[in-house]
């Protein structure tokens, strides 16, 4: 019997596709498959495509739920394997976007061999699980008509190829562009942003410049898409997919090591002894704790995030520097340790609620809440460099922390802190241990407090108060 959906929350992020929708029930995410998708759904199984894609861990596996609530046009209800933490392309490093793009192409190529194709190619259909991208929108696979070109070609270019071209030629901040253009960077804008030397590349000429020119010519015309196009073919589509794949594979997504924070620990004069001592104290503080989830703020190269993930704690590692996140992601792909999700987040501007009614894609703070939060060598950057008052930093950490906080305080006398205020005459003058402890005591009980060797820096373990 079909029950109504009144008591369950439909997820706004999935209502653009008439084939079905996602809803949440008892803390789990389900997907209703509508009658209109029935033929595609059956073919997905009878062709063996579902089995192939889930075996390769390219597509999220699911089970069918017989007794589930639904709307009148319900055909099936499925319960996919749950993703612990949802992330969005504007939080990924270029390496993550590149892998997500390659996965999209691999799935499309596998699908056309089995009579199906992806009807959309948005990075929002991909999540990261155990360090690798996985496709989560099962209903995006539809029956394939070889006489037609790929309907999602433009979306693929705008969402994956163009950002990665810009990353390759302009070196950086593609996550910020993805935030400004969540549905993809238009061809015309990409053409303007790419350097003139890129025009000599056949890929840029065809996928960016030609596409931009044709879109401009078609703008405002009443010609329905494809009305005069001759039939396409599987061979032609395969060539385009292979070409896109080859381009994506050779685009560079990293940057020389000498910039940014990515070699902070290698360069700093505090390095070896300080880091050893800090790690020992950190592990001691962690020993008696049993968090299921952790959040590493200002994770840098992810050294401490990996320590947490290795203890089977589901860990989100964030840093504002995409180079750090890219390096960490690459390292985790090569040597996976538990569940670690590296994300590019600037804590002064965390990802806001985005999309329809501001409900389609929840902001970072709403998704990142974790039992344990660690903030090592972070507070002085927020307070002295970004001018956030210590009370404000305590507000943020209290909002993110479920139970425990391990936090490092760097005094003003520290050489790194001095560098930050060297040419600054305006920063919060009450920056100091006493004020720090006062601010954090509003939300936390200080359980442990240890000096990190002779560095002058202090490591705290705090427990969140039940009624702050």
């Amino acid at each position: 019997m079909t029950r109504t959906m009144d008591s369950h929350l439909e997820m706004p992020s999935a209502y653009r596709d008439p084939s079905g929708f996602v809803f949440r029930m008892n803390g789990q995410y389900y997907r209703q498959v509508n009658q209109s998708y029935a033929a595609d759904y059956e073919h997905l199984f009878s062709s063996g495509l579902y089995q192939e894609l889930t075996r390769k861990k390219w597509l999220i596996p699911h089970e069918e739920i017989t007794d589930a609530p639904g709307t009148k046009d319900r055909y099936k209800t499925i319960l996919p394997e749950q993703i612990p933490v949802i992330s969005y392309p504007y939080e990924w490093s270029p390496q993550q976007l590149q892998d997500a793009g390659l996965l999209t192409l691999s799935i499309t190529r596998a699908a056309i061999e089995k009579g199906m194709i992806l009807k959309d190619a948005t990075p929002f259909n991909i999540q990261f699980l155990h360090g690798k991208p996985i496709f989560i929108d099962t209903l995006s696979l539809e029956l394939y008509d070889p006489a037609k070109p790929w309907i999602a070609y433009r979306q693929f270019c705008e969402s994956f190829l163009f950002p990665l071209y810009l990353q390759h030629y302009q070196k950086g901040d593609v996550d910020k562009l993805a935030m400004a253009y969540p549905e993809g960077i238009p061809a015309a804008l990409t053409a303007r942003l790419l350097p003139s030397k890129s025009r000599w590349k056949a890929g840029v000429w065809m996928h960016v410049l030609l596409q931009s020119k044709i879109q401009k010519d078609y703008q405002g015309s009443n010609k329905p898409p494809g009305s005069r196009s001759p039939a396409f073919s599987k061979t032609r589509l395969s060539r385009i997919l292979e070409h896109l794949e080859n381009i994506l594979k050779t685009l560079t997504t990293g940057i020389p090591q000498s910039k940014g924070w990515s070699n902070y620990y290698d360069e700093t004069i505090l390095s070896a002894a300080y880091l050893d001592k800090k790690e020992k104290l950190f592990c001691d503080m962690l020993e008696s704790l049993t968090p299921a989830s952790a959040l590493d703020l200002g994770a840098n190269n992810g050294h401490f995030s990996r320590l947490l993930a290795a203890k089977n704690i589901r860990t989100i590692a964030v840093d504002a520097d995409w180079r750090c996140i890219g390096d960490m992601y690459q390292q985790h792909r090569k040597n996976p340790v538990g569940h670690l999700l590296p994300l590019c987040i600037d804590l002064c501007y965390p990802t806001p609620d985005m999309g329809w009614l501001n409900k389609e894609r929840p902001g970072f703070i709403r998704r990142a809440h974790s039992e344990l939060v660690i903030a090592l060598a972070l507070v002085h950057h927020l307070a002295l460099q970004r001018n956030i008052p210590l009370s404000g930093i305590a507000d943020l950490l209290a909002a993110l922390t479920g139970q425990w906080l391990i936090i490092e305080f760097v005094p003003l006398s520290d050489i790194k802190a001095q560098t930050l205020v060297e040419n600054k005459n305006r920063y919060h003058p009450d920056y100091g241990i006493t004020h720090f402890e006062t601010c954090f005591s509003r939300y936390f009980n200080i359980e442990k407090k240890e000096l990190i060797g002779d560095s002058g820096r202090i490591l705290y373990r705090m427990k969140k108060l039940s009624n702050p």
Partner: protein
Amino acid sequence: MINICLLYIDPGSGSYLVQMIVAAVLGASFFFKNLWLKIRSFFFKPKKEDQPENDPDNG
């Protein structure tokens, strides 16, 4: 002809034309590359199997 009612994403005006042209260029490139390989192997016996080229944009 495409039934537009079934398309929930905008395929983009002219996107089909772009794909036709891209496919034609790639097809021609494939044809000439094959032709060149045949001519080369007719005159010179290849020592090893030809490796695929690395530059994607030569595709």
